[in-house]
């Protein structure tokens, strides 16, 4: 599904990703943990196609495509979804209209017929239940005036409507209360199947109690320095990062 080899990326003159390797197969859930500033969001942004990053080396294959050649919208059409660490507020752009346009853009790309208003409403009613999304949030401008937790929940709502093939969740659990964390986790779990892959960026092992990862990686200083199973997250929780960093150095 996703194959990253020796990825190097810079912002300006600053190298942030320094030879990152990661292979994600269809149906797998990978957790990426790591110290602040280690490059987790940078990786997510590079994968989603944000401007301003200079990829100097390495390859990223997504399905049979060279991901780095695609525009951000083309990546979305091809089934990639990024739940942002800091979802942006967009005054004047309605949440539902955006979602409908997004769904139809993807359907169009796949050669499916576009949904009309009624069909679309039917679709989102379902999904709203899963993430317990409030009606009034739906008709507001995208994320405008949403609380931190509401923004995160909106990201997961969008994800569940768009049903991506590869979802990257950048600290979706940060800032969620305990109930919301459960709801969001259920939303993610309901999407899990053998064709869909998920990358969870998180600082907290708690999330992994709800969403069991197949693999856990530690990203430090622009590289994956250790990989393991779910037990690695528990070990990190207990010991922090220093012991791995020392080993890697």
């Amino acid at each position: 599904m996703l194959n990253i080899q020796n990825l190097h990326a810079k912002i300006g003159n600053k190298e942030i990703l320094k030879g990152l390797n990661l292979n994600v197969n269809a149906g797998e859930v990978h957790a990426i943990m790591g110290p602040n500033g280690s490059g987790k969001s940078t990786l997510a942004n590079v994968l989603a196609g944000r401007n301003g990053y200079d990829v100097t080396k390495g390859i990223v294959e997504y399905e049979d495509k060279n991901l780095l050649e695609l525009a951000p919208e083309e990546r979305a059409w091809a089934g990639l979804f990024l739940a942002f660490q800091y979802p942006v507020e967009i005054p004047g752009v309605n949440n539902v209209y955006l979602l409908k346009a997004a769904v139809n853009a993807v359907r169009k790309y796949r050669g499916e017929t576009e949904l009309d208003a009624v069909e679309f409403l039917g679709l989102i009613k379902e999904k709203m239940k899963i993430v317990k999304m409030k009606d009034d949030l739906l008709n507001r401008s995208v994320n405008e005036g949403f609380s931190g937790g509401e923004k995160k929940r909106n990201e997961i709502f969008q994800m569940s409507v768009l049903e991506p093939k590869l979802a990257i969740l950048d600290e979706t659990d940060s800032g969620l209360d305990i109930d919301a964390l459960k709801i969001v986790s259920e939303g993610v779990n309901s999407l899990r199947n053998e064709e869909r892959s998920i990358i969870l960026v998180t600082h907290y092992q708690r999330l992994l109690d709800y969403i069991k990862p197949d693999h856990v990686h530690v990203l430090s200083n622009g590289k994956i320095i250790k990989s393991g199973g779910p037990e690695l997250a528990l070990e990190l929780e207990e010991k922090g990062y220093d012991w791995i960093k020392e080993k890697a150095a």
Partner: protein
Amino acid sequence: MNDNIQNYVSDFERLKNDDWFAESRYTALKLFKESGFPNSKLENWKYTDVRPIKRKSFSNVSEVTVSVSAEEVNAIRFDDLDCIEIVFINGMFSKEHSSLSALDKGIVVENMLDALANDKDLLTKHLTKYANDNVSPFIALNTAFIKNGTFINVAPNTLIEKPINILYLSKESNGALAIHPRNLIVMGENSEATIIESYIGLDNANYFTNSVTEVTLSPSANLKHYKIQQESLNAYHIGNLNVMQGKDSKLESHSISLGGALVRNDIHGQLAAEGAEIIMNGLYMTGNKQHVDNHTRIDHLKPRTLSTENYRGVLNGKSRAVFNGKVIVHKDAQKIEAHQHNANLLLSDDAEIDTKPELEIYADDVKCTHGATVGQLDQNMLFYLRSRAIDEETARSLLTYAFADELISNISFAPIRNRLERLVIGQLPDAALIREFTNE
């Protein structure tokens, strides 16, 4: 250079000028002759060069009468709005296209020529009293040609529910036409009305509109005034709106500027009694080589007056816009509130904006804020939309629309809001896509 002034003088001489207002016209013409067109050495005209208007010989006298079909007028009417309509074609009152019969009690809507004949007392009292010929040569020029235009009088304690739509329609005729519409709106005590002034160019006609609107609000009067400027892209438009406000009166001015090659809007509000409030909203969208200048001035003359001003601009191509907002808080005008904001979105590297707030405050117990921003489309928003499968062009249009709509969505009157939203969408590169997005 004086030749073109001579042009207007000969026009003047060819027109009949023998009614009671003749002397005023003559004096105004003299004033214009002496001052000539403003040049950019004047502070007030620093960023707007009117030489293109000056150089071209426009004439107020048309040799032919152009006719406009009912379809052409219908196409620009508010289809979902029942309104009182007064229509002018190339500056001339068109009885045929107007709908002025069966007006409610308490309201007069008539062509200025008829008003000069029928309402001498009211005109003597109000006409030329709020727009000052000495302030701008264009006002003087307009006064010299007062004939066609709209006179509206709303009686005290009258609520006019139907909006009044004043339509100035211009079409190519032989030669370049100068039109000088003069409007006077007199709102009686505790009266209420909605008035729309539309300036619309039908083809790529080359003409010069030089309009002046005077408004007076008696105590507790309430007027919503919309100006929609959609002149042809070859037209020149100079428009003045001058308002005098009495105690507890309220004016909402919405000025939407979309057309014109060279445009200058001047709005001047005078809050002349306690409790008067003015809201000034404006939206300008420019492209190609358009030049659009909005100058506003608000005088807080008395205590406890309130002004809120919000102007937004979207600039594309090699266009240039100017915003100059002057707020003067006069001595002893205590406990006033004045808020002003101007936001600009530059969509191209070649577009240019000059924005300048000017606050002069001579009282001490006041609450004033002002701010101006100039920016491009937000990269984070753009990326967010694209990451949600929206292609780049649509994302750009959508954000542009959202920027402009922040102004329009505040318009409380739905038919006008919808019309304006459609007009604004029509200005965007991906009109069809945006329409799809918003018309659910």
